[in-house]
């Protein structure tokens, strides 16, 4: 990896000795000798295994739950259902001010996605827990389900989540997170070219090599220790890859309750299949971008309509949707911007944070759109980025002045690296000031 110290040369401190230099990772000796301890690398006497009974339906009313056959399986100690959960609501998100709480720990009235937690089987062994889970009989009445974000917003669509009363998260009285800057209609009217495009992504799994899980152990004096691989303790060892997927703290509440009720250590570990299909993925997004472009390569207006598929419950999606809105219209200075970002509920696995939360899919849409715009007017795509790049002192669409910009320098350095010829006028441009 090379350094380009010819950019921002005066801004760098040269007197640092411990930072700015490569040091061996402090954890790597443990990794290469296999001594690093992950949450599951502990053995507790009397450990119980928790297996979850999950909804086979996308949307259904729970008519009855019969646990009697499961309890007869040798080794099964207890089966927890919603009535065993004293405060049956997932409240973690109040810390980041995402409210209302909209998700039960165990489903009670209905299930809102395939894979939702319905009953927790506690047994001496994994085998017994799995066998028990197979014998819990749940009677459902199937309900119509909705899977498409724009379908979900239409009148008459099945209501996914009663906590919200509608299929979208409400932002201070608005049906979406809005950003308004300049007058986008005027900007579009003044443009030489107007193009509107649609971009779509599908849900993506974090796929850490270590699946999500925890062990909760009762200590003396009514305290409990939770060994967890969560990324966010205060929302709980080493973690075998996170990428955002372990920020939800979703296995811990029911494992805690199980340990409290049984007074025994309880392990709740997602199988690989659960990790793939039940753990929160990166949300699917649908993004419409409508741009007004001048003949000489300036973007005059950008109108963005973005839908985040939150799935059945909020998790971190309302937060991520606001982050997506703040990120628009990308690292460019555009005089007229309008952004509507919708956080939409559908009958699928709740999505949540993943590496680049709120930004990764937006960047895909923005940067493919930029390529289309550049080609439309026959301009080199690097030159087009540099021409429209934000610079220090510019105003962003969310009404915040740009500081510390460095997009132009990155494009220039990438052009050198890839031997991509760059127009002379671009080489003279800088993020720190605008040329006269």
């Amino acid at each position: 990896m090379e350094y380009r110290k010819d950019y921002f040369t005066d801004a760098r401190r040269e007197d640092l000795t411990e930072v700015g230099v490569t040091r061996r990772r402090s954890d790597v000796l443990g990794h290469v000798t296999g001594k690093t301890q992950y949450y599951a690398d502990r053995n507790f006497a009397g450990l119980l295994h928790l297996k979850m009974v999950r909804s086979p339906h996308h949307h259904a009313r729970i008519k009855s739950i019969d646990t009697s056959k499961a309890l007869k399986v040798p080794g099964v100690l207890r089966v927890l259902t919603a009535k065993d959960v004293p405060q049956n609501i997932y409240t973690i998100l109040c810390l980041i001010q995402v409210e209302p709480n909209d998700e039960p720990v165990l489903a009670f009235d209905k299930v809102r996605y395939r894979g939702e937690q319905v009953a927790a089987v506690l047994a001496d062994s994994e085998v017994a827990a799995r066998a028990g889970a197979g014998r819990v009989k749940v009677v459902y009445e199937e309900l119509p389900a909705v899977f498409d974000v724009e379908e979900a917003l239409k009148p008459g669509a099945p209501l996914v989540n009663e906590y919200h009363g509608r299929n979208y998260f409400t932002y201070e009285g608005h049906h979406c997170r809005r950003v308004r800057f300049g007058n986008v209609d005027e900007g579009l009217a003044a443009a030489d070219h107007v193009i509107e495009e649609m971009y779509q992504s599908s849900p993506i799994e974090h796929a850490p090599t270590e699946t999500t899980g925890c062990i909760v152990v009762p200590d003396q004096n009514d305290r409990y220790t939770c060994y967890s691989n969560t990324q966010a303790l205060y929302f709980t060892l080493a973690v075998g890859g996170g990428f955002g997927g372990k920020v939800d703290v979703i296995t811990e509440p029911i494992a805690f309750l199980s340990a409290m009720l049984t007074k025994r250590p309880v392990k709740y570990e997602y199988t690989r299949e659960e990790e793939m299909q039940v753990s929160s993925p990166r949300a699917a997004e649908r993004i419409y971008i409508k741009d007004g472009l001048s003949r000489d390569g300036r973007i005059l207006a950008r109108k963005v309509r973005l839908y985040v598929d939150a799935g059945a419950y909020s998790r971190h999606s309302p937060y991520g949707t606001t982050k997506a809105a703040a990120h628009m219209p990308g690292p460019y200075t555009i005089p007229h911007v309008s952004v509507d970002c919708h956080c939409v509920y559908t009958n699928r696995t709740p999505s949540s944070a993943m590496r680049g939360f709120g930004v990764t899919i937006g960047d895909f849409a923005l940067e493919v759109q930029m390529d289309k715009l550049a080609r439309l007017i026959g301009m080199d795509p690097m030159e087009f980025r540099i021409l429209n790049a934000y610079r220090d002192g510019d105003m962003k669409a969310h009404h915040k002045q740009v500081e510390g910009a460095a997009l132009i320098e990155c494009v220039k350095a990438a052009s050198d690296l890839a031997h991509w010829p760059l127009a002379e006028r671009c080489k003279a441009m800088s993020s720190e000031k605008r040329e006269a």
Partner: protein
Amino acid sequence: MAKKRGRGMAAVNYPTGMNLGGDPSQALVHATTTGSFIVTLSSVDLGQGLKTVMAQICAETLGVPTENVIIDTADTDTGPHCMGTFASRGTHRIGNAIIMAAKEAKSVMLEVAAEELEVDSGDLQTDGAGNIHVKGSPQKSISVFNTALAAHFKHGKTISGRGIFLQPRSYPEPETGKMTPATCYAHACTVAEVEVDTETGEVRVLSLKSAYEVGRALNPRMVEQQIIGGAWMGLSHALYETTEPYYPDRSHGPVDFNQYLMPGPGDLPEFENVVIERPAADGPYGAKGVGEMTANSPIPAIANAIFDAVGVRVDSLPITPEKVLRGIQALNARAPY
């Protein structure tokens, strides 16, 4: 039928820290009797190497070698509050909390050293190698080891410090979206080169060349780990990954690594990277968060390169061979030759 090559690029920025702020992290620093320093956190190292970088930041601030700093993480009973390791906030938020705590600890350490050397603490400096000496006269010196011993057993002082970093919460204006989502942004530009098989629609990424502006690379090899690992993940997102291949249809969801596709070690492009540093005013030694964003620019760069190669726009992820092939067929149907 042929293999066609193309090149595409993309440029991005990425905010450091929890969107809109309001996400405190704390750090406690104390010296042992023998002059090692323990940093107590409730932060989680996901594998990105948080602990290593935090030790470097603490060592830099104290003026001691990194080996003399131990990072103790992840226990809510013994560590002070941390919001968590996400949103590219670890280096920035926790790093700033450690600087604050280490500065307080350092001032006590220098006071004790000053008493031992019978000088003014303002005249003292650390040498980064485990000693404290009078500025300009390195021979008038005491080791950190002896200073810590003296603090404990002679002066009855605790060489310790408390730190917290909080970016105050910003509340977006509902009508206009006026807000402060983040205080600093990292930047990147990626050039992708691909080869598309026009018979199968398969895409092979030949190279990913990126320039990253990261504020300050606190541990350069670890920054490189993030850039290469992220570029691989970006390639994977672009061409392979999804839990719902027929979205919004819920069927055919993969349940294991045989069905959930990711590029293997045989599918790697050539990676080449450069780093630019424009220190962030509020970053710890100027650093910004760089771990998350590294998957972002490769995705559109690859999509644009595919268009450059075969003239097909696939505007939905992942860009599967089926989509590419259908695009090529549609082009051929429109312009038969």
